[in-house]
């Protein structure tokens, strides 16, 4: 058997798009109201302070306006989404043998147990609203690392969670953040104590299965002073032709001199509204890296944010977005530089094909105290045909004269001369486009661990199929 080896490149579109049976979902109503919010909280046996957060957030959700900018969200009907559903009576298993066999099979198809054996320090697997499996290798547990399903962390480490929860992303941040806090379920709590360097990546995988499902996992990562962590997030959902909603929230705190790398490959189906909030606060000399691949999903709005509060804090944002037919990828980065000599790099690569719309939307905000801050932004867009669209919308606010900010943007198509040159070496146009796209993305893809780089390349390859019109 070779199942100990992880090879994401074996994953096909069918593995991603095929749903499991979902009769369980019928037990859960669609739509959102206070009764639902109270029920979620009661099901989880949460302390009152968490319920209070939920109810406050629900009130904010009703008050806050839909975003007045960005992609069209009129196809999203809040009354048609199922906000909470569980598919199993045995959540949060510690071994794969205890996971419901159907669900286990799905994660095996997605290569998660294989990846865990081969290269990960720990894994969380969420199916609909609940974590079905969570584990951390003993060597990290012994060093005080906490890696738990978020619901379980609320139960077992209430003080630690309470101290950090909602501190990075406030509940009234925007309408979808408020919605998230009202109905959040599952997700990850990762705590790395001072000085502990977790050298292997930790991964969570989020799978939506039923039609019209919503997923609202909360990820809270605290990397204390001088510590190090690499967290990988993967996501997918099957295709139904009817809207589903993902409104996750990620809060990251990077302590002084600590470093955190957050890699994600989001590969929702074309039915999904992916309206996600990811933010990090970085202390002095700390470093945050956001590496993101956004594929799939009908509409994505995602702008990972780094707030550099301490002197010499640093953020690197590397993003790849692929908008295929019918897709709108509105992605980018926000960096708020507050400390002296803070530095940020943003590299965004977007691809559009078959009439897809790909937009880079970015904010660079240099505060008055951020003396000698340095920011470099590079946005490159590649359109694979004449009907596809690419847009760059950068906002720059600079409150300190000593800051150095560069912004480079390029947008274009693959030139006929380049294709002819590739042909002169024997490459047919389809192969040539694949090679050129891989090269275009190389700068970002090579920052991922090898297996995930292969996965992203494979997913791009699936998107590229039939690219010759």
């Amino acid at each position: 058997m070779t199942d100990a080896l992880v090879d994401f490149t074996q994953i096909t579109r069918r593995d991603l798009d095929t749903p499991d049976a979902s009769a369980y979902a019928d037990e859960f109503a669609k739509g959102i109201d206070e009764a639902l919010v109270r029920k979620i909280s009661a099901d989880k046996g949460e302390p009152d302070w968490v319920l209070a957060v939920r109810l406050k957030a629900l009130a904010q959700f009703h008050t806050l306006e839909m975003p007045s900018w960005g992609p069209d969200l009129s196809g999203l009907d809040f009354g048609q989404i199922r906000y909470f559903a569980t598919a199993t009576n045995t959540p949060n298993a510690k071994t794969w043998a205890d996971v419901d066999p159907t669900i286990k099979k799905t994660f095996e198809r997605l290569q998660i147990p294989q990846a865990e054996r081969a290269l990960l320090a720990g894994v969380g697997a969420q199916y609909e609203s609940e974590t079905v499996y969570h584990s951390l290798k003993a060597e990290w547990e012994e060093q005080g690392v906490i890696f738990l399903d978020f619901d379980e962390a609320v139960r077992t480490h209430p003080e630690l969670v309470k101290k950090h929860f909602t501190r990075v992303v406030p509940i009234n941040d925007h309408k979808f953040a408020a919605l998230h806090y009202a109905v959040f379920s599952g997700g990850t709590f990762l705590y790395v104590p001072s000085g502990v360097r977790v050298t292997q990546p930790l991964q969570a995988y989020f799978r939506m299965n039923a039609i019209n499902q919503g997923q609202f996992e909360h990820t809270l990562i605290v990397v204390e002073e001088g510590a190090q962590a690499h967290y990988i997030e993967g996501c997918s959902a099957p295709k139904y032709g009817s809207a589903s909603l993902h409104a996750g929230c990620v809060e990251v705190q990077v302590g002084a001199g600590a470093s955190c790398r957050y890699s994600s490959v989001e590969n929702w189906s074309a039915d999904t509204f992916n309206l996600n909030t990811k933010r990090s606060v970085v202390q002095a000399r700390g470093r945050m890296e956001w590496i993101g691949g956004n594929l799939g999903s009908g509409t994505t709005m995602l702008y990972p944010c780094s707030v550099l509060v301490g002197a010499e804090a640093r953020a690197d944002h590397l993003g790849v977005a692929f908008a295929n037919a019918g897709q709108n990828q509105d992605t980018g980065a926000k960096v708020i530089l507050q400390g002296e000599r803070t530095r940020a790099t943003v590299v965004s690569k977007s691809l559009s094909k078959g009439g897809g719309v790909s937009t880079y939307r970015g904010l660079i905000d240099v505060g008055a105290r951020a003396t000698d801050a340095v920011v470099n932004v590079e946005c490159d867009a590649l359109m694979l045909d004449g009907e596809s669209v690419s847009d760059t919308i950068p906002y720059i606010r600079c409150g300190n004269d000593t800051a150095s900010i560069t912004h480079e943007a390029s947008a274009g198509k693959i030139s006929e001369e380049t294709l002819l040159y590739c042909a002169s070496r024997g490459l047919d146009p389809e192969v040539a486009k694949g090679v050129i796209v891989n090269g275009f993305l190389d700068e970002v893809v090579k920052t991922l661990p090898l297996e995930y780089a292969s996965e992203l390349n494979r997913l791009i390859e699936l998107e590229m199929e039939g690219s010759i019109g």
Partner: protein
Amino acid sequence: MLQIEDLHSRLGETPILRGVNLRVLAGEVHVIVGANGSGKSTLGRVLLGDEQHTVTQGTVTLGDADLLALEPHERAQAGFFLSFQSPPAIDGVSAVDLLHAGAQAASEERVSHFRFKKQLGAHLRTVHLGEEFVNREIHKGASGGERRKLELASMLALEPKLAFLDEVDSGVDIDGIHAMADALRQYMAGGGRGLVIVSHGERLLDHLAPTHVHVMADGQLVESGDATLLQRVKQEGFAQRKGALERRGIGTVRTEA
């Protein structure tokens, strides 16, 4: 091996090639000289199948293949190689990855990436390029001379039957010229191969022994001969040569209106 008969082409509405005839046999080295705008580079582009050029008449065969019926990549796979005067840089794509993809496409068997890379490294040494060019983004930030050397190394790596080299020697220093001549001799030594070199009659030709020399003017090969023709053209220049030909009534030399 390569047989061109009465080849005519247009660029937009403008006729460029006006009846080219050329036969290259295995082991032959043909040199085409001619003034700027005489159609030398266009001939290479038409043989590759550049869509900007429309073939209006004529046939081209390479071995058994009807070249004009094939797509450009199929022509390359059938053994035709064209060097580009200004090859494009491709972001994030290394020379070895591009050329290996081409070699693989032309072969029915699996081409080992590892072995191909090693061979490409050796070919780069032959043309006096550092081995780092194997993995560097192809043509990115490279000088004109470096690009042309890499084109020759690419030719050695892909082992075409017929290589059409378009001014590979311009912008290359004297040491580079020696290296290029070595590369071309090595290529021909592979056997069963033919070479067509387009040049302004510069230094590279001093180091080669062309078997045939052709003068191109106004879209035709108006005069053909052995290596001694090269010397005569060098002394007289194209304009005089063309005048002399016209007076002698050789070729149907036309002048643009």
